[in-house]
């Protein structure tokens, strides 16, 4: 049987989710003072750029943005066959900042654990908040998102695919059922 592909979010749905998250971030943090955004490469980094644009648009002031690569902090290093490492690009110290960590899909939580360890090696943030486009469940670590685009209970063998266009803007989210 061919894999079944179900659309979870279309472009409008994604835009609305990001807009809502932007407002929630501003409400919770009472503005953008000491606020920075860090995306987890690669999907999370693209979404972080979109969230940064939205927040900066609402506040009329640019919020600092960085990307983090977590490959060197992963716990499954010995069993991965793809050894490509991306580049971390954070041009500010996260020390004393409220960091909005952004990823596209939250699954086991292991990537987020790695990202938090990577961030802590760069400085001591005031706090770290987690923004996620899709929370698909199946956590293996005590990690919980602060901002969620869409909650989507899934089976373990299903996959979530976030499509980005050549401008790296999210276009759609699909659930793939084998």
């Amino acid at each position, binding site marked *: 049987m061919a894999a079944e592909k179900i659309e979870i979010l279309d472009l409008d749905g994604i835009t609305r989710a990001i807009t809502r998250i932007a407002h929630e971030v501003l409400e919770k943090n009472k503005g953008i003072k000491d606020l920075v955004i860090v995306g987890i490469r690669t999907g999370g980094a693209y979404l972080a750029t979109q969230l940064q644009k939205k927040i900066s648009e609402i506040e009329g002031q640019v919020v600092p943005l960085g990307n983090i690569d977590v490959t060197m902090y992963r716990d499954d290093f010995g069993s991965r066959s*793809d050894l*490509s*490492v991306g580049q971390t690009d954070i041009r500010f110290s996260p020390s004393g900042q409220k960091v909005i960590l952004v990823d596209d899909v939250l699954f086991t939580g292991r990537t987020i654990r790695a990202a938090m360890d990577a961030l802590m090696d760069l400085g001591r943030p005031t706090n770290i908040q987690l923004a996620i486009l899709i929370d698909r469940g199946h956590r293996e670590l005590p990690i919980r998102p602060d901002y969620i685009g869409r909650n989507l209970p899934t089976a373990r063998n299903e996959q979530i695919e976030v499509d980005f266009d050549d401008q790296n803007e999210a276009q759609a989210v699909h659930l793939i059922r084998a």
Partner: protein
Amino acid sequence: MTFNHKHIIGIKDLTPEELTFILDTSISFKEINRRDIKKVPTLRGKTIINLFFEASTRTRTSFEIAGKRLSADTINISASGSSVVKGETLEDTAKNIEAMNPDAIVMRHNASGACEYLAKRLDCAIINAGDGMHEHPSQALLDAYTIREAKGKIEGLTVAIIGDITHSRVVRSNIYCLTKLGAKVRVAGPGTMLPPGIERLGCEAYKNIDDAIKGSDVVMMLRIQRERQGAPLIPSVREYSKFFGLTHARMKLAKEDAIVMHPGPINRGVELPTSIADGPQNVILDQVENGVAVRMALLYLACGGEKLQD
């Protein structure tokens, strides 16, 4: 990308794609070396042994720092203070070390082929830190990295390498590496230091340094290795310096934006004068800085992931 080499023995064994992959991977590690906290947990719990049968400060320190910044435990063994002086064979030394379950052995040895010999007999990863007159892959990779960083590319560049071509493993690895990445390599040195047939490796050989430097993008000066030669191959250091040392007049023959490289340690006033070694065109300390990043990438790639072959 996958990387299916467990051992790093020579540049000759690597494809252009693999070389580019190593250089790209090194960029990520260079960023770590400029942080306040210069350490990532990637190789936590791995043991890396630096087994050095020849004197080395730069390469050994560089590999040791690379391992430590990846959180591996690194142990240094130098031949002078070891069981080698008590008459143990290379294979016995290596097998005894392997019995302590290291994940990688970084080895420098005065015999060409020593690393390959061990790679065939041991289960852990072997990384060549220079074997006799054979290869010095990490040096060639840090040179390529430095060239690419300074020039933005390697393909289409002309690189002149000057010095003792016969005894230099740096030259051999550099010829393989740079030609695979699309550069044109010229070598020049005194007749006694220029092996016949070196062109078969894909380079051009010159007896006159000026011809080699003319129009080059990169001028790489090699150290005169007085310790590696039996009978003297040059009448005197002064004469060598006059005919094969770099001068400002000779640098004018190279392209205006040419860079000057040297694998170190420099014999100041022999291969090049202080005014060039410390001048605006030199990237000699960049080579050293990049060496750590490149060696981190090599340790990461050799110790990590599932290997499908090799």
